């Protein structure tokens, strides 16, 4: 039944559980639309034929009863609100941080997609991810607004310059899915496409091992040197001591209490936001003194620092994680501002 309807509505194959749930809502809402407009049209035809008259006659003055009007309005509004409730819940799932997520950094620019992986490697326009692991994208743009669109996931998110936005996609079924740019971004907007390849775990591992032969330092190592170079250790430590800022040890995956009383999960997205927009979320008990690194900390280095912070919680147990080696793009020459005051 689902399959039939999906084909009838020209929807592409659904990659995730969430996409299927959205399709179900889709069928209900569009089904109502079709039936509703046909019903209205049918009623109009019937009334026109029934009351059509060759002679213009006086007609009785009719007025609706207010109670009935209210009832009708209430019925319609409740139907619409029901759709909203279900839709909003599903919508939120695109923005929930997923535990265990496979996080990829996405950089959009006219007219290509660049993907930076947890192990530091980068690819253009083709994104390869493992099956059965929730996928999370942390995205930013180098120039104008683009929109990352995965029809198979029923997912889309505008990618903005100067900001990191996240998109949680859930675990996908193996297969190839089209990526398009959905926000007009200039003359080659229509050509800014890519492909998402979801591989079964084994194949993914093979892909990982096959790629990037000439990489020479681990991403974690790179993250450590980048942190040192950008002066993070002036305020942060990696050994559990609190300094000007909170320590990074054990930070990743923990729950952070913010100054305004809310709690957030310290995932890749949060850490990235902490670097790029530190004033937005202030950790409880600290001063809002951290400068923003937006524009001065290039994407690959930010990714590396996040990986480094992530490594700090397992450092006690499992030293020297055997992450694949990486290659990081040279620091971004296009950065517009220096961090030095």
């Amino acid at each position, binding site marked *: 039944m689902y399959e039939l309807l999906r084909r009838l509505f020209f929807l592409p194959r659904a990659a995730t559980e969430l996409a299927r749930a959205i399709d179900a809502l889709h069928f209900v809402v569009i089904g109502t639309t079709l039936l509703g407009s046909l019903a209205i049209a049918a009623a109009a035809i019937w009334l026109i034929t029934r009351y059509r008259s060759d002679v213009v006659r006086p007609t009785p003055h009719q007025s609706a009863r207010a109670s009935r009007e209210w009832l009708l309005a209430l019925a319609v509004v409740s139907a619409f609100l029901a759709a909203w409730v279900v839709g909003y819940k599903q919508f939120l799932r695109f923005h929930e941080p997923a535990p265990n997520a496979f996080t990829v950094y996405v950089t959009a620019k006219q007219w290509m997609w660049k993907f930076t992986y947890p192990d530091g490697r980068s690819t253009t326009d083709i994104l390869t991810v493992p099956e059965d692991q929730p996928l999370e994208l942390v995205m930013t743009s180098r120039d104008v607004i683009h929109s990352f669109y995965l029809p198979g996931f029923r997912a889309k998110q505008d990618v903005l310059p100067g900001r990191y936005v996240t998109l949680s996609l859930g675990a996908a079924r193996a297969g190839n899915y089209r990526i398009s740019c959905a926000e007009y971004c200039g003359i080659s907007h229509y050509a800014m496409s890519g492909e998402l390849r979801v591989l079964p775990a084994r194949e993914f591992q093979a892909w990982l091992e096959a790629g990037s032969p000439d990489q020479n330092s681990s991403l974690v190592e790179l993250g450590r040197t980048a942190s040192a170079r950008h002066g993070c250790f002036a305020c942060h430590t990696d050994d559990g001591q609190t300094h000007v800022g909170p320590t990074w040890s054990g930070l990743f995956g923990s729950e952070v209490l913010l100054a305004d009383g809310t709690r957030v999960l310290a995932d890749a997205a949060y850490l990235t936001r902490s670097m790029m927009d530190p*004033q937005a979320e202030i950790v409880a008990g600290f001063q809002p003194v951290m*400068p*923003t690194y937006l524009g001065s900390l290039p994407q690959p280095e930010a990714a590396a620092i996040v990986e480094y912070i992530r490594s700090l919680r397992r450092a006690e147990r499992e030293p020297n994680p055997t992450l694949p080696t990486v290659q990081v793009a040279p620091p971004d020459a296009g950065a517009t501002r220096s*961090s030095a005051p």
Partner: protein
Amino acid sequence: MSELADHFDSPERQAHAARLGMWVFLGSELLLFAGLFTLYGAYRTKFPAEFAEGVRHSTKLLGSLNTAILLVSSSFAALAVEQLRRARRGRALGLLLATQACGVVFLVLKFIEYSKHFALGIYPGGQGRFFAAHASAHFEPFWTLYFLTTGLHALHVAVGILVLAFTTLALGRGSFGPKFIHPVHNATLYWHLVDLIWIFVWPLYYLA
């Protein structure tokens, strides 16, 4: 210009139409500034520290002097209408001229303010050496909004002066009398709106 246009059936209706038209137009003008107030609120939420600091850099004395001038000018305008109602055309003319004079002084002071900012290297759009020296913080939104808001407001002051000037001329020619003052009233309404907007611009950009 005769007092009653032929498609109106009474002078009261015509006056009501003119006043309503003016007020609706003022509502429209208010929404022009609504966008600027909104941007102010949004950017201040984003950069509270920069905005607080920006306010400290503004030309507070001149701005406050301008506030006083506008308030006084508005009082003059209101009194002018009052005098006209009592058929004192001479006084009304004087008060209207005083209102315009205040407006001109306002614009002159505004000009001085701007040149002070320029001297410090503060230009709209985050251009100038002030911003180069404070590259780690984002002062640009505050200053760009400052120039945009006060500039647009100054434009309205200028238009207000012109409107008042035309009204004064017509009044001098004797077009309006105690029974037919709504053109004058409307011109002052516009002036009051310009004042109203400044009443909110002032604390936002100069005081706190």
